[in-house]
């Protein structure tokens, strides 16, 4: 039995363990959960709690629960846990031991070796402490790799060609950005920057504040005093954040939130993506500033970066992708689950060390961008066919995204929806793959909101639906083979373009599938014709006769005679060449 080396992402907030099984990377789940909160605690009976259970008691028993121990790694201090002092590496070891046990249970064999990831900025002391934590947990740390390195590996960083990647890692509570250089399968971190206290939890808090202000304003109730209602608002805010990753509006509705002056108070509120993006703009600006600092540290400009990789659950926020696109001019990658890709990279590294085969993390992605055209501005000029991408290239499938548009003039009763495939900012330069009308819209002023939803499944079926937001009036179409269609379309376009260049007319020659003998015969004819210059007239005459005969046989479908003539011609060519 092969000795298995596991890959571990030992995070500040969460940790994961991954292995490679039959060449495929698997993040091992414990009780259907792939993410283990990085919490350690002791329960009433003195038993050790790791993960969610420890987190559940943190608020009541902080004296016997430890969280975010990673922040203390490498420091010469002791943390108190139920009256006993422990070094940070001992606490980390408890988490590692739990991850080891999860892997062992899945594999049904003991595990003794691991690759563990650490932040790029970790000092030697912090790395040493992590190594010790592994040893205490009974794991030989065969290698420690930087988190951005692991992310790059999950995105095929083992490739030979040289490239520079920007790894943008925004988790629940921490942010890191790194510039890495990949050459001949070696990943090197050129620079790194970050903020230890910035993440998706801050985004949730902004939405919570927004809801609380709304309730105070509209109902005159300060919900901060009502625990149950506050707990429901917290959940609703987090849920709204998730919805806004794919849709332009999130409806936040909580019925019977609380009772006030003898009446039930309900929460019903709509949050639009632009409003949400305004709330979190300062945080996003801070991350973009950090990107600039990291780029400066690596002495590089945006044009030197070949790829951007998004890591951490909070990178699902669409404006992050847009901001990075504006900075760098190309789409960031996010197809590998951003919560798990560091652990996956660690497992890939582990497998490479043990000399086994490993495939890159396989994710079904769309190879093209899908969008629609709208009136807008292109190169600062008014243009009626501005391309608006909805499902971006390299998005994991299946996927469903919605964008909002508004009518252009008062009393507009019809909108024409055109769906394109491609990346050009001018919609007309992309391939039109579908078109339909939505008729019978309300007779209202310009600005009537129409939402357009694109849903692309694994079989390449693109379901497009447009809805008038105010009335729910909906029209939809389904485009089959949306993924392959462009390939054919593009081929025809390319062929026509090349033909034009060579001054040929645009008729497309239909190439039939020919039998292998015929293909061979044609090759032989070409070869014979190339030899005409060095051939005596007598031989040439024979060859011309044979070529003619072969052509006749092909046309008439005379296989036997074709064989004979081909053999004769081949003889002459052999004689001439030798």
């Amino acid at each position, binding site marked *: 039995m092969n000795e298995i080396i596991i890959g571990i992402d030992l995070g500040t907030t969460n940790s994961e363990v991954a292995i490679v099984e039959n060449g495929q990377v698997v993040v091992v789940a414990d009780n259907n959960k792939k993410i283990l909160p990085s919490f350690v605690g002791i*329960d009433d009976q003195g038993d050790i709690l790791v993960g969610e259970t420890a987190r*559940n008691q943190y608020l009541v028993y902080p004296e016997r629960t430890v969280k975010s121990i990673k922040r203390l790694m490498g420091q010469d201090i002791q943390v108190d846990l139920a009256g006993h002092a422990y070094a940070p590496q001992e606490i980390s070891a408890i988490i590692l031991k739990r991850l080891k046990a999860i892997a062992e249970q899945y594999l049904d064999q003991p595990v003794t070796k691991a690759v563990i990831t650490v932040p790029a900025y970790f000092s030697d002391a912090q790395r040493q402490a992590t190594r010790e934590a592994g040893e205490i947990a009974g794991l030989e740390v065969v290698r420690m790799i930087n988190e951005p390195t692991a992310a790059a590996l999950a995105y095929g960083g083992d490739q030979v060609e040289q490239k520079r990647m920007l790894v943008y890692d925004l988790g629940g509570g921490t942010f890191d950005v790194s510039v890495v250089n990949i050459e001949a399968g070696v990943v090197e971190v050129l620079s790194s920057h970050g903020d230890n206290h910035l993440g998706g939890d801050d985004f949730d808090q902004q939405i919570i504040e927004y809801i609380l202000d709304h309730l105070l304003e509209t109902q005159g109730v300060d919900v901060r005093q009502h*625990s149950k209602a506050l707990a429901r608002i917290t959940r609703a805010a987090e849920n709204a954040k998730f919805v806004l990753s794919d849709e332009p509006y999130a409806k936040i509705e909580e019925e019977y939130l609380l009772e006030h002056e003898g009446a*039930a108070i309900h929460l019903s509120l709509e949050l639009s993506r632009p409003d949400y993006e305004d709330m979190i703009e300062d945080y996003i600006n801070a991350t973009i500033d950090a990107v600039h600092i990291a780029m400066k540290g690596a002495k590089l400009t945006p044009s030197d970066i070949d790829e951007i990789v998004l890591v951490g659950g909070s990178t699902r926020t669409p404006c992050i992708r847009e901001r990075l696109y504006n900075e760098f001019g190309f789409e960031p990658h996010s197809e590998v689950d951003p919560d798990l890709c560091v652990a996956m990279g660690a497992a890939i590294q582990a497998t490479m060390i043990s000399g086994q085969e490993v495939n890159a993390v396989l994710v079904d992605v769309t190879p093209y961008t899908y969008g629609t055209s709208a009136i807008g501005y292109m190169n600062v000029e008014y243009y009626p066919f501005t391309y608006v991408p909805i499902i971006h290239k390299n998005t994991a499938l299946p996927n469903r995204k919605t964008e909002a548009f508004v009518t252009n003039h008062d009393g507009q009763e019809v909108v024409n929806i055109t769906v394109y495939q491609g990346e050009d900012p001018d919609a007309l330069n992309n391939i039109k793959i579908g078109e339909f009308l939505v008729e019978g819209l309300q007779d209202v002023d310009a600005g009537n909101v129409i939402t357009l939803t694109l849903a692309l499944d694994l079989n390449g079926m693109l379901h497009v639906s447009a809805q008038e937001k105010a009335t729910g009036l909906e029209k939809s179409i389904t485009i089959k083979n949306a993924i392959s269609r462009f390939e054919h379309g593009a081929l025809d376009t390319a062929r026509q373009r090349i033909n034009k260049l060579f001054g040929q007319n645009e008729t497309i020659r239909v190439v039939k599938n020919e039998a292998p003998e015929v293909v061979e015969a044609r090759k032989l004819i070409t070869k014979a014709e190339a030899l005409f210059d060095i051939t005596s007239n007598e031989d040439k005459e024979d060859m011309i006769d044979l070529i003619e005969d072969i052509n006749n046989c092909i046309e008439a479908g005379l296989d036997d005679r074709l064989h004979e003539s081909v053999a004769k011609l081949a003889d002459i060519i052999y004689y001439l060449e030798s």
Partner: protein
Amino acid sequence: MNDIHKNSLLEEFQTYLEQTDLAHIISAEQPDLSTLLSEMAGLRSEVKAESRHFKTTLDTLDNALTTVQTANKALADELAAHSEQLQQMRSETLRMLLLDIVDIYDRLSAGFGVLQNYHPVSSLFNHSKKQDIRFIKSFKEGQSITLKRFEQLLQRHNVSSIDCIGKLLDPRTMSAVEIDHDPKLDNGIVIDELRKGFLFENHVLRLAEVKVNKL
């Protein structure tokens, strides 16, 4: 065998010899032994070749059998794995559905709580209308029946609620989201349930979110 029988056989043999022309056997040339030997050798090598072919065929058959057996086993394993996967998927789908049902149950319960807190106005000059009181009473009864229906549905699927209030915090089934200070109660006792928790087949379906006493 008696003599008569023997004699009769001898006679028969004699008749046979007399009647049969054995000239060709006698006149036939003696066989060329070296040709015979070489033919015998040829025959031998042919038999050997045949038996080699036969052995190869047997080996091929054996291999084919092994391949079929291996494929069969792989197929059986695959089927077992798929059936397990299907079971897991079913259970996961049911879990998700039950979570949604539990969420609707929560919301209905919250509405029912508001109805229960309703008290008709009954002051000296101000009274709630009788028909309003009756309407609200019957609405409350209806809601109570609907709630019971939900409870029965959950029970049928082995979903049970987690009993929290007054109990010591159990981090395996409850999550402490708020603390309070009540000197009359022990440390770690659950004072309030902010969100009901549920068990599904003795596993946590949803954690209870609780307010806990902290001394």
